[in-house]
């Protein structure tokens, strides 16, 4: 008997359920207020700026279901960073090309004297080239992260681009260590000569002698070189710190912190690349005799007189003729 009553109750329940379900479904369209706050996603997201749920695993950040700031961050690294990078890098290249074809190479006006003076010792050149080589690898592998998808992927194809990007990312991580070491050494090695002073103001007022045939006086580093020094120290520190935060995700950072680190890393890096293009230009094809300073460690005496006259006086007072060495090709024939 109990079994029969149980079955009757079941079938009655099923019928009642379907009757109610049909009635409720029929009323649905009119029961939802389309103007309610709950149906406006934007208003909903603004209630707490994020929607967070509950979880049982220790990874607390996984409880965040919606993170509206992520959309702004995506907009930044998919759109804005591309524009900032393209304008900075291509803009700098355009300026340098225009400058080269209008001004040309800055020559040693009084010609080469044939006498060289030591400008950078072996350790300074070692540190410079270590940092510079690392920077080039980091810049190329870093630009690949931002622009590789648009520029290289169509050329290389998915397989080759994937292999290249994987190798580039590993190189980016590992090369960061000698680069950071180089930035620290550069900071310690040249800080004394890169403190701004009154001579720098005069150097800037006279445009650094870039235009025309002016040669404003300068100590070992002129104002332009000091600017490069501080860009390297401050910019290098910024990309190193933000890069290591990205390399160790969520070690002391939140989701917002990681996004901020990526924004700082991306923006500073592309501006850094643009600034270094200027540095590479003036150190190679932009100025006669400049590359020798880092290539061989010496510069021509007349180059030093024209570009670093105050430094030359200091060197003469300190070392005198022992610092000078005559080039074999400049020795008068007997």
């Amino acid at each position, binding site marked *: 008997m109990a079994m029969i009553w149980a079955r009757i109750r079941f079938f009655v329940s099923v019928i009642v359920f379907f009757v109610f379900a049909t009635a409720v479904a029929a009323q649905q369209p009119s029961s939802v207020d389309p103007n309610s706050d709950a149906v406006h996603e934007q208003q909903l997201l603004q209630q707490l700026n994020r929607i967070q749920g509950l979880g049982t695993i220790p990874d607390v950040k996984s409880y965040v279901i919606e993170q509206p700031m992520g959309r702004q961050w995506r907009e930044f690294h998919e759109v804005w960073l591309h524009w900032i990078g393209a304008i900075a890098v291509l803009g700098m290249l355009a300026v340098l090309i225009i400058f080269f074809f209008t001004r040309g190479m800055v020559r040693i006006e009084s010609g080469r004297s044939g006498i060289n003076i030591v400008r950078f010792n072996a350790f300074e050149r070692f540190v410079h080239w270590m940092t510079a080589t690392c920077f080039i690898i980091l810049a190329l592998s870093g630009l690949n992260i931002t622009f590789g998808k648009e520029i290289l992927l169509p050329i290389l194809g998915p397989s080759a681009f994937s292999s290249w990007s994987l190798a580039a990312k590993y190189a980016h991580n590992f090369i960061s260590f000698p680069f950071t070491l180089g930035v620290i050494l550069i900071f310690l090695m040249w800080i004394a000569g890169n403190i701004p002073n009154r001579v720098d103001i005069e150097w800037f007022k006279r445009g650094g002698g870039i235009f025309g045939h002016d040669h404003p006086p300068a100590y070992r580093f002129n104002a332009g070189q000091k600017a490069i020094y501080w860009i390297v120290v401050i910019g290098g520190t910024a990309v190193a710190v933000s890069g290591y935060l990205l*390399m160790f995700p969520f070690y002391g950072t939140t989701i917002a912190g990681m996004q901020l680190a990526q924004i700082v890393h991306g923006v500073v890096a592309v501006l850094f690349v643009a600034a270094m293009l200027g540095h590479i230009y003036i150190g190679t094809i932009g100025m006669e005799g400049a590359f020798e300073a880092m290539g061989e460690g010496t510069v021509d005496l007349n180059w030093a007189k024209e570009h670093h006259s105050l430094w030359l006086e200091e060197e003469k007072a300190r070392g005198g003729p022992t610092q000078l060495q005559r080039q074999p090709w400049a020795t008068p024939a007997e």
Partner: protein
Amino acid sequence: MRAFLLACLAIVVVGAGGYFFLGALQEPTGVAYTTDGARINVDWAWRPVLNPRNANESAVSELCDKRKTWQWIFVDLGRPDGESTVCSDSQ
């Protein structure tokens, strides 16, 4: 030139140090972003949660009579005499 070559050598040495340093500190994604705290307990059941009154009875399957296949097919909601009510609660 010698300074440049030495610089390249230093990059390789310090970079290799970075390789071992990161290898020692970093974890593969599959390890870093999972936890052994999330495991399915095969003995867990909804019954004590839904019916706290009988929580002490827990859902020990041995206490409940095994339903026959025809009982599942024909939705037999009957409860054998002497069986705990917890056995009839839906999961």
